[in-house]
């Protein structure tokens, strides 16, 4: 059960705009508390009485370019929307009536018919195209309660320490005391014993990802099959091509390099040659990949033209590994299929038994050697991994290290395969002779799938390249259509009043950002933005549900919604910390790509000119990395948050998630190190 949301956009008479704004400021905006409460609601708008409400805010959209002014009410809450609206109307009937009476289309009967008002709200609810929550699945009471539990444990331990009571030396002992005396022993805290139910999207995040990758692979296979069929190679035809290819390769390579065949007689030459060929190909691709990948993790070091071949190289690398695994399987099947190479089958002669034993011993010695080599490779790989734990290397050495690590891991893989082949070679013949043939054809089908998947992915990349080139052309055209947002920097003083509330008063810990931008004209931009919002929504729901959105750990709740028939993009965001550092996180980390993908489709109007988003390159790159124009753009697009309410205004996302972790792990059986880190977190 993720937090629910509503975004009610209602048109408002232009004449009423200013009075409505003033009314909200005077009667709805919560105040900095004087007593124990940090935030104090006004009598007409007791948001704090609504137990399910996380955040809510009011903003006003000014009339612009043929679109009338409107009032926006945004809320994030638990439970069904219907219940929330009902509760809202019960809690603040008079205040809401005073506000919405000034809106167009509001039922004339007003307070007498709350059902009609609710229906009015539902009719104007635009929801959210993309919604993100920093702590999904937690109710308001749970977040507050877990905060109290954490504070309680801290002060409980502090009191214990101060009074000089005996403190167990072991962390586990301390945890036991906390559980016994503070949680179980205190009636108000006993609820924390229950495990909190987290939404399935959070708990089965990995499985969803695996399913998604599998789905994408199957899709790629289908695309590959279609493309191959189009060129006259249907899956069946390809299958018939694969089988004889191995036999043919076998003969040719065996005549070319007879010494290899003599070296390892156990393995069929065909498999061996393909194995060696694939290994060499893999090594080449990997070197190519390392050459392309930039050494630093700075997003500014990534360039579109390099990313493309790089990602293809990665895909090719994995395909080669998949082929290698298939080859090994094939070898195992073939090894099992062959008549037993050892001559011990004929009973009788003692000498032949000795020969058999000798052969077995030889295999055993070979196995031990391979085992030792495997251990050596393992040691090498581990020490390479540990080498950068304490001291990072410079760029060139770091890449050499990565290559060496890959070679070590690859050697481990090959050695393990050879070991398996050796074991298989001395196993008795498989009783069911049909099985080997069946297994072999399974492996061939596997080859076919990998091949089709690879083709599909390459085709997808080709289509993607065309799409990005189209976007690149659009970006080039935009340069002449829109002014450089650097020109917005001089407007900083004019925009300052929009954000006067930030970082002070009730917004000392949590802030609100409301922004409205125009979507660039044209069907491509419109659908591109819809596609990006859809993709980010999926990611936010199924992958970024652990408190971070693309590595940004400060967003409490954010929504994007296209309004006015897709002409404008409304963004409403509750975040922790200060505006400056919040934007810096986007600018300097990889999340900049998502940000660019959304807002590069937008522009803002100021002083009769249209300013585009800082120029992106191929949708994802540059853009917001031009920090100063970008910040000026955000300030220009920002609108004043007139009313803001947060149910837990002093907490941060990190703190909320840490509190849930603390509470969840209290009653799990933990390892001593986990207990230690639990106590360290408090």
């Amino acid at each position, binding site marked *: 059960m993720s937090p629910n949301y509503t975004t009610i956009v209602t048109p408002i008479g232009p004449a009423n705009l200013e009075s409505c704004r003033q009314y909200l400021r005077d009667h709805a905006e919560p105040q900095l508390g004087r007593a124990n409460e940090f935030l104090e609601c006004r009598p007409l708008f007791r948001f704090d009485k609504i137990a399910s409400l996380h955040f809510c805010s009011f903003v006003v959209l000014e009339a612009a370019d043929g679109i009338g002014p409107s009032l926006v009410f945004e809320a994030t809450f638990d439970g069904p929307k219907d219940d929330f609206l009902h509760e809202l109307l019960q809690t603040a009937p008079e205040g809401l009536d005073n506000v919405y009476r000034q809106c167009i289309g509001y039922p004339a009967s007003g307070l007498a018919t709350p059902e009609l008002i609710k229906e009015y709200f539902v009719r104007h609810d635009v929801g959210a195209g993309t919604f993100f929550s920093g702590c999904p699945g937690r109710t308001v009471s749970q977040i507050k309660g877990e905060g109290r539990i954490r504070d309680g444990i*801290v002060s409980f331990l*502090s009191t214990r320490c101060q009074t000089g009571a005996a403190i167990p030396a072991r962390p586990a002992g*301390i945890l036991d005391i906390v559980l016994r005396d503070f949680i179980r022993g205190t009636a108000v805290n006993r609820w924390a014993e229950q495990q909190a139910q987290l939404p399935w999207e959070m708990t089965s995040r990995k499985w969803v990802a695996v399913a998604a990758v599998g789905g994408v692979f199957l899709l790629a296979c289908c695309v590959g099959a279609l493309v191959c069929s189009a060129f006259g190679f249907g899956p069946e035809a390809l299958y018939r091509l694969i089988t004889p290819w191995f036999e043919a390769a076998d003969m040719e390579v065996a005549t070319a390099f007879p010494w290899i065949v003599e070296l390892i007689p156990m393995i069929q030459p065909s498999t061996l040659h393909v194995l060696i060929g694939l290994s060499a190909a893999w090594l080449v691709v990997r070197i190519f990949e390392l050459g392309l990948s930039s050494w630093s993790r700075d997003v500014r070091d990534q360039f579109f033209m390099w990313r493309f071949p790089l990602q293809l190289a990665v895909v090719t690398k994995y395909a080669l590994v998949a082929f290698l695994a298939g080859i090994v399987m094939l070898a195992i099947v073939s090894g099992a299929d062959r008549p037993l190479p050892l001559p011990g089958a004929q009973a009788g002669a003692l000498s032949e038994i000795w020969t058999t034993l000798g052969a077995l011993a030889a295999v055993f010695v070979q196995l031990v050697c391979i085992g030792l080599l495997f251990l050596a490779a393992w040691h090498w790989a581990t020490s390479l991994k540990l080498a950068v734990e*304490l001291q990072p290397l410079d760029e060139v050495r770091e890449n050499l290290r990565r290559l060496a690590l890959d070679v070590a891991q690859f050697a481990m893989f090959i050695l393990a395969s050879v070991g398996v082949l050796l074991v298989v070679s001395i196993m008795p013949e498989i009783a069911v002779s049909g099985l080997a043939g069946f297994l072999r054809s399974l492996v061939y089908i596997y080859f076919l799938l990998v091949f089709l998947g690879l083709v599909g992915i390459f085709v997808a990349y080709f289509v993607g390249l065309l799409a990005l080139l189209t976007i690149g052309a659009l970006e080039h055209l935009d340069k002449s259509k829109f002014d450089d947002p650097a020109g917005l920097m001089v407007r900083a003083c004019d925009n300052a009043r929009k954000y*006067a509330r930030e970082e002070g008063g009730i917004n*000392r810990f949590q802030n609100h950002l409301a922004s409205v931008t125009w979507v660039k004209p044209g069907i491509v931009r419109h659908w591109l933005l819809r596609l990006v919002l859809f993709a980010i929504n999926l990611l936010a729901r199924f992958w970024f549900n652990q408190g971070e959105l693309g590595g940004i750990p400060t967003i409490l709740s954010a929504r994007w919604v296209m309004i006015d028939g897709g002409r404008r993009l409304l963004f409403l965001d509750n975040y922790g910390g200060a505006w400056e550092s919040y934007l810096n996180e986007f600018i300097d980390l990889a999340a900049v790509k998502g940000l660019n993908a959304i807002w590069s489709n937008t522009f803002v109007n100021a002083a009769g000119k249209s300013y585009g988003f800082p120029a992106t390159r191929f949708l994802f790159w540059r853009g917001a990395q031009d920090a100063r124009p970008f910040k000026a753009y955000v300030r220009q697009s920002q609108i004043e948050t007139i009313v803001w309410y947060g149910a837990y205004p002093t907490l941060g996302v990190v703190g909320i998630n840490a509190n849930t972790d603390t509470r969840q792990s209290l009653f799990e059986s933990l390892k001593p190190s986990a207990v230690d880190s639990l106590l360290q977190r408090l």
Partner: protein
Amino acid sequence: MEKIEWSDVQGLLLSGYPQLPFSAYLAWRFRPGRRDAARRWLADLAERLMRADGVQGEVRIAGATSTAPTNIRALKAASGSDLRAINLALTASGLRKFDLDEGWLSEFSLEFLEGMAPKPTAATQVPRRSNLLGDAGDSSPELWDWGGWTEDDGVDGMLLLYAADEQALQALVDAEIKAMDAASEVATSAGRDNGGPIILKGRLYDDRKEHFGFTDGISQPTIEGSPMAQRSKEKLKRRSAATKENDDGKVLTAKEQRISLVKPGEFVLGYVNERRERIPDRSAKGHANGRDLLRNGTYMVFRQLEQDVDAFEDFVSLLAKRLHGEADPVTEEQVAARLVGRHKNGEPLVPRAENSTKKTERNDFLYSHEDGSGLACPIGAHIRRANPRDAIGPDPDTALRLSKMHRIIRRGRPYGARRDPKEGKSSGNGSRRGIAFIALNADIAGQFEMIQHSWLNNAHFGGLYAGTDPIGHVAQAGDEFAVQQRPANLHIERPRPFVTVRGGAYFFLPGINAVRALAD
């Protein structure tokens, strides 16, 4: 790599003038209607300002001591008691007196134009900037001695004067007041000593300790392309020859370079910064009269921070009693070190790595691998908050890269008499002491302010739950200091802050040519 025009940069950026331990910070304002006199004064002053390096081809006559050196290289070589250094900084209001209708002022950053303490308006009870900086309560600009809300007309600029001894400093102050008399006057205080001149006397003691007793100014960023960075790089290259100690100054080890080397654009305007941008960028080039006032300049943050040494020491001894059972110099030293993150002699709490330098004031440490959980140096300790190195970010490498975008060069010095240890606690109340905090950076919002609000004043810093910088000026309900330790962390509530802001302003430290251009 880009060459920096050091001879056009004011010397304060490269040096805190350790050879000139006596200093005076003199705030002034232009006399109204004397623009011509002001131009003459600035033109004359421009030639006397201390530069970061000598001008190419400048005739240097050996032994000629008639004129005091005006660049750092010459200053280091010279000796004598008549040595001095002068630097000049201007506020937005000072620049406004020159920018009448040309409009070049808008190229300066918003926070500089707005000032450190913009006056409250009807719409905003407390301006956003004061909220950001945590200037509330006792530190509210309402109560400041200067630069706050009560002044009618603010400070236009500041002269930073440095001399070798007290008499020389006094002579220099008198001479400079006389030189500017026709154009400007010393600004007067609005606060406690109403009407008194704003001349703050800074003093760099031999032990480099501030009033709480800690060695100050140890960790400084090093500008790539500065003489020290060049020396260090060269030394690293010819490592074999390194056995021979050079006497041409300090060098950085490889690890120190990794930690401290920062792109010039973070501190000098007009060069590439850590974001690979240039402030001002291309769009600012080529305006009306072809002057580029920002080039080779930087912004200077000046804050007068008063320190209540008695309250600090009371708190420390109270803590020592609570933690160690008794308060003696040893336990007090340990407790105080926990608050700051370094011992009083400058030695950091982060344990020494194997190949670390042997110096006590060493600065070659990182947090992520060396003390990730804060067991040695608490996460909320002052030095960890002020410069988290590689601790705040998705991974240590990225974190270190990010933290380099938020560094400042500190040139502050203590002011006021040192408290005599023998002096009774009650008698010390009369004297005012503190630190004249000076920070140099190219982007006040991204550097000084960001450090202030997102690190020092941030209750959620590094996964903490409550509390701000233990020796900061911010007071919040439920202020605490958490000491990470085993078996369970210790949470200590902190009483009211020991530091109070008494005044301050944002300045622009122009390049020499920019001063000349203003005087033109």
